[in-house]
């Protein structure tokens, strides 16, 4: 009995039969006896003849090329150990962060407690992840705040081609850096705006598996911004496009 056994946007559970017959299993699923089953709680998706399940929860598993925001937890020789959330601790070698020659005591440059924006250079499950700070926008952060959200929700927070995150930034005039590891750096002009931004991100995190979310977040922000500004009328849209990761003068890049 071949076929597909799930609906669009259905929340499926581990062990649930998703497809039988000429279908391939992909992320979040497994196959047994020519059938594809879900391995996770999530949303089942069919692309061509590939079935996958997008998880609604889960820890951060690094991938090469990911932008991550981490905290230095230890200095060991020429390496910083970086907490990026999830079960795998990052390792940043001084050669990938500093210009040579550099001092033997690398804690002079970055020390325990520093927050760094890095890129994942390499990771396979038996070692790493190894991080790098060579690249556009990779630097130490010193102000603002860092919000933790579930890494599984980050794609929704970014939105297709950045639609969601840009909508939020336009509304609120904030600067953000979104780490794939579920950490979002936010710099806002005042506390009320900051709270609103946090509220928007938490709302997306909570409702990531529903549709028309961008509209609802937009409406919420419009309503709340109006209350804040005390005027009737719409939000102020920013005309120029902004990059997702903000560039600014970099005094501490070596």
């Amino acid at each position: 009995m071949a076929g597909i056994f799930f609906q669009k946007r259905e929340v499926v559970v581990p062990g649930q039969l998703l497809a039988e017959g000429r279908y391939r299993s992909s992320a979040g699923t497994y196959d047994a006896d020519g059938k594809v089953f879900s391995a996770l709680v999530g949303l089942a998706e069919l692309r061509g003849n590939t079935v996958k399940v997008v998880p609604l929860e889960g820890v951060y598993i690094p991938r090469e090329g990911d932008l991550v925001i981490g905290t230095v937890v230890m200095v060991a020789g020429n390496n910083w150990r970086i907490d990026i959330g999830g079960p795998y601790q990052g390792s940043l070698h001084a050669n990938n962060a500093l210009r040579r020659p550099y001092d033997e005591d690398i804690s002079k440059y970055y020390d325990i407690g520093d927050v760094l924006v890095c890129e994942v250079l390499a990771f396979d499950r038996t070692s790493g992840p190894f991080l790098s700070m060579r690249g556009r926008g990779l630097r130490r952060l010193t102000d603002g705040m860092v919000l933790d959200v579930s890494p599984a929700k980050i794609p929704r927070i970014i939105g297709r081609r950045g639609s969601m995150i840009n909508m939020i930034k336009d509304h609120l005039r904030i600067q953000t850096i979104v780490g794939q590891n579920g950490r979002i750096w936010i710099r806002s002009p005042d506390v009320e705006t900051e709270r609103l931004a946090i509220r928007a991100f938490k709302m997306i995190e909570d409702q990531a598996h529903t549709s028309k979310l961008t509209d609802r977040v937009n409406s919420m922000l419009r309503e709340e911004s109006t209350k804040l500004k005390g005027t009737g009328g719409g939000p102020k849209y920013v005309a120029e496009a902004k990059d997702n990761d903000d560039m600014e003068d970099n005094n501490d890049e070596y």
Partner: protein
Amino acid sequence: MSTEKRPDYLISPEGLRIDGRRPDELRPIELEVGILKKADGSASIRQGKTYIMAAVYGPRELHPKHLTLNDRAYLRAVYRMATFSVPDRKKPAPSRREREISMVIANALEPALFLEEFPRTVVDVFIQVIQADGGTRCAAINAASLALADAGIPMSCLVPAVAVGKADGKLILDLGDAEDKYGQGDVPMAILPNTEEITLLQQDGKFTKEELLEAIGMGMTGCRYIHELQKEALKKAYAKRAPEGAGEEEEDLGEYDDDMEADLGESDLPEEDE
């Protein structure tokens, strides 16, 4: 000093058990997912008067490091009973019984988990028994399965469990505390419903081979029913978070081109195989 005493009979002349159940009837079961905010995954179970909370942390970094496995995650279960969960206050320190049950629970869950996904890590399962009225290790497994799914640990299926016993010569399903204490046997079991393989089986008391096979059959039926309850509890937990109207077919995409599936899958590389 416990004021409990041995009941006069475990099965009445009408064939009913001391709480009015038929021999093949389960106690009322309530499952709730996501009850502890700080855990990666969590669930609670009420099965009759038994009340247990389960939390999962992981996969996470493993301490002590010497337990690390290079090709898979290490699964660790800790089953603890509150001092006040039983009539005679239990001493706070872990007992040998708790340590054995911890191991048995880990063994029951492990076959369902794809631990090779997360080498060098640990998946911690914590079970807190708040009120114990029989069948705690099975109820713990029922809740722990949900907590593991809630944490996003990949599994081949959920793991249901139940204990079958014998009272006054009859097989009974889902033992209560008195039936366990004063009955003639206790067979806790857990299965993988997709393949019907057994991941937990213990037995005490005296059973003939036929009786034991029949007891296992009764347990399988009980487990299958509990499995349905587990699936329902998981789906309900996520359905709760969807606002009104979110399930509608979208004719009008609104101001924004909102492709939820694509957005959610955005950071996955295409054609990524397991």
